[in-house]
């Protein structure tokens, strides 16, 4: 797949390409089993999971109703603890803010995993100014080496097999003195650690995302399993947090309620290995920490989602469970979706941010099987939201003409039962004759969508209504 020119508008060709990729197939199959089983275990081990879920939903719904209040409260607290808050309406504004904070050229910037920075296109913007960006999350580090975007919101390199990663290190790491091919996971991890360690110590700026922003304390929270987030934000002089506006929660207690759902839903852990709270800049008696602490609050279209039919999606805590349980994601992986957020949450969110007309396939490419909504810890009715996008697309005349005419013809028939029964008796007769003695058909005119993937079972002969009328 040409990842540089991928787009949500090219979903179909991208998906077709992904389906041909055997490495992707292997990588996804492996990941799926792990995620699904571990989550199930973690969730079943916590009796009160459902009640926490209800509480979590209440917390987020409350915040979304009073978002302006909590964001301003958060801002006050950040300022009171010696930090700075920057409001950015667009991705571009957010990038400019980061550039201004960093200043100059040719700095070394450490990054912890942040999907919001992907949304901003931050790495490219920084590199354009001659800065060097070092991704410190192992997955992010791998895809940075490969010049690829993340394909999953919590496991950015999940699309790669171990062999591919091993090749990548073999190819890219001779400059760090690696000359043999590493094949075992622990060896690969320690190789990356080794290389990153030096960079941690020599960087000017650390940029992280935030899983939550806490209004009562002005803290930002990140969870990681490698501890890279801590180092990225403690060692450099300047710590910048990029976060979207819906990440705020009122209290520390609220954050801990959501944290109980997050890791269980994401990786099946009770807690991620590291949960890091950052509050303000280094105080005089602190032993370490950044001299400057900045939080960039990115809107990027979210305030328009508030109060709309799609508000529920803003409860999302980016756990990735809906991706892990989505059979479409499991078939094509994340890159095919064409923009930052893949899978069910992405198919809801992407059209809201980049425009439905630019992402028409995303809400359609779903069998509405409902598994995402079932596992979502924040009880986001993902299938309903996808269907809502379909209503909008239909209303705005954004559906293809084949579907439109098909629906018109179908509606004409089903609203006229006598005509319908007359036509269906003919149709079943024809199909039954075509398939006489075969049982199922390999090819049927006008039905290549069906027969490209499977045979068409032949009707028994007459419709139920015909037979029922005779029987009586």
């Amino acid at each position: 797949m040409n990842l540089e020119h991928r787009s949500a508008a090219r979903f179909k060709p991208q998906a077709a390409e992904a389906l041909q990729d055997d490495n992707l197939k292997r990588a996804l199959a492996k990941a799926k089993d792990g995620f699904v089983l571990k989550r199930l275990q973690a969730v079943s081990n916590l009796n009160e999971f459902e009640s926490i879920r209800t509480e979590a939903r209440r917390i987020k719904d409350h915040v979304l109703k009073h978002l302006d209040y909590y964001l301003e409260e958060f801002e006050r607290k950040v300022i009171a603890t010696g930090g700075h808050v920057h409001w950015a309406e667009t991705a571009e504004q957010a990038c400019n803010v980061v550039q201004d904070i960093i200043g100059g050229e040719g700095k070394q910037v450490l990054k912890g995993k942040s999907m919001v920075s992907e949304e901003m296109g931050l790495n490219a913007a920084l590199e354009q100014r001659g800065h060097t960006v070092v991704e410190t999350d192992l997955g992010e580090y791998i895809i940075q080496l490969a010049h690829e975007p993340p394909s999953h919101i919590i496991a950015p390199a999940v699309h790669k097999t171990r062999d591919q990663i091993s090749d990548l290190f073999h190819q890219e790491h001779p400059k760090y003195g690696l000359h043999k091919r590493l094949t075992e996971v622990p060896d690969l991890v320690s190789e990356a650690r080794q290389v990153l360690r030096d960079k941690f110590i020599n960087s000017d700026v650390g940029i992280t995302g935030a899983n939550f922003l806490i209004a009562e304390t002005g803290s930002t929270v990140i969870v990681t399993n490698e501890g890279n987030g801590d180092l990225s934000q403690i060692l450099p002089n300047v710590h910048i947090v990029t976060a979207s506006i819906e990440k705020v929660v009122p209290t520390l207690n609220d954050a801990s309620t959501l944290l109980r759902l997050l890791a269980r839903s994401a990786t099946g852990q009770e807690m991620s290995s590291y949960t890091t709270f950052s509050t303000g800049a280094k105080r005089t008696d602190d032993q370490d920490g950044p001299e400057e602490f900045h939080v960039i609050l990115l809107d990027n279209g979210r305030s328009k989602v508030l109060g709309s039919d799609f508000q529920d999606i803003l409860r999302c805590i980016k756990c990735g469970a809906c991706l892990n349980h989505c059979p479409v994601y499991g078939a094509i992986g994340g890159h095919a979706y064409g923009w930052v957020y893949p899978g069910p949450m992405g198919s809801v969110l992407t059209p809201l941010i980049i425009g439905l007309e630019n992402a028409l396939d995303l809400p359609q490419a779903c069998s509405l099987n409902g598994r995402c909504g079932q596992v979502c810890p924040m009880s986001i009715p993902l299938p309903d939201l996808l269907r809502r996008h379909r209503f909008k697309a239909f209303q705005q005349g954004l559906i293809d003409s084949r579907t439109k005419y098909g629906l018109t013809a179908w509606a004409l028939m089903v609203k006229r039962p006598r005509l319908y029964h007359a036509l269906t008796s003919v149709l079943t007769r024809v199909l039954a004759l075509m398939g006489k003695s075969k049982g199922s058909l390999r090819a049927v005119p006008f039905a290549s969508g069906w027969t490209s993937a499977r045979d068409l079972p032949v009707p028994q002969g007459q419709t139920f209504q015909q037979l029922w009328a005779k029987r009586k």
Partner: protein
Amino acid sequence: MTAANDEAKSTVALLVTCLVDLFRPNIGFATVKLMQQAGFTVDVPTAQTCCGQPAYNSGDQASAQAVAKQVIETFAHYDYVVAPSGSCIGMVKVHYPELFAGDAEWRGKADDLAGKCYELTTFLSSVCKLEVTASFSRSVTYHDSCSGLRELGIKSQPRALLEQVKGLTLKEMEDSEVCCGFGGTFCVKYPGISERMVSDKVGNVKKTHAEVILGGDLGCLLNIAGRNKREGASAEVFHVAEVLAGMADIPGIGEKST
């Protein structure tokens, strides 16, 4: 209405579903037979066509509402409405009321209908408490269709009924709750993705070595049977109603008659 005596007098309307009507009337007759066994009078309104899902899931709310009104009117005066499909009953029970959220009159009518319509296996196990008399001496595996499973909670009902079938052994497959890739118009709009999903399903079936695949929704069964044929797999496909009614003595879905 809940006492057994009253039920014996009630009339059940069969919502036959467009796919059963077109492709596999045997499922319709099996459903009728089961309800009659349970002591109900069965009626089949001729004014029925389709529940409207193709329009609803394609975003055409106006057509979906028009079709829904037609279904509501056709079935309003029955005591019970039963369909051999979790997907169509999910549409009526869950989505009709949503479709009329802004229309008090029709919302009321939709709620009334929702209250008395049942997917077949749920009806048989919770309303009829049917004792199954059929026998079927083959090993089967059961695919949980998504709408039935997640919108109506259908999981144990068909299994409890199948347990009573003499000679039948159930071999559960891995990921029985994962979508088979049908998804209505999804399967023809995104055939490549759907193909991966259905071949995964067929792969899981093969691993059980079950002779027969059962399910409660003909859409999924046509998809699975069609893929089975394409791959030359041997398992036969039947609707659960056909087995419960002792009417699985004809060739499976997509099989040629011998």
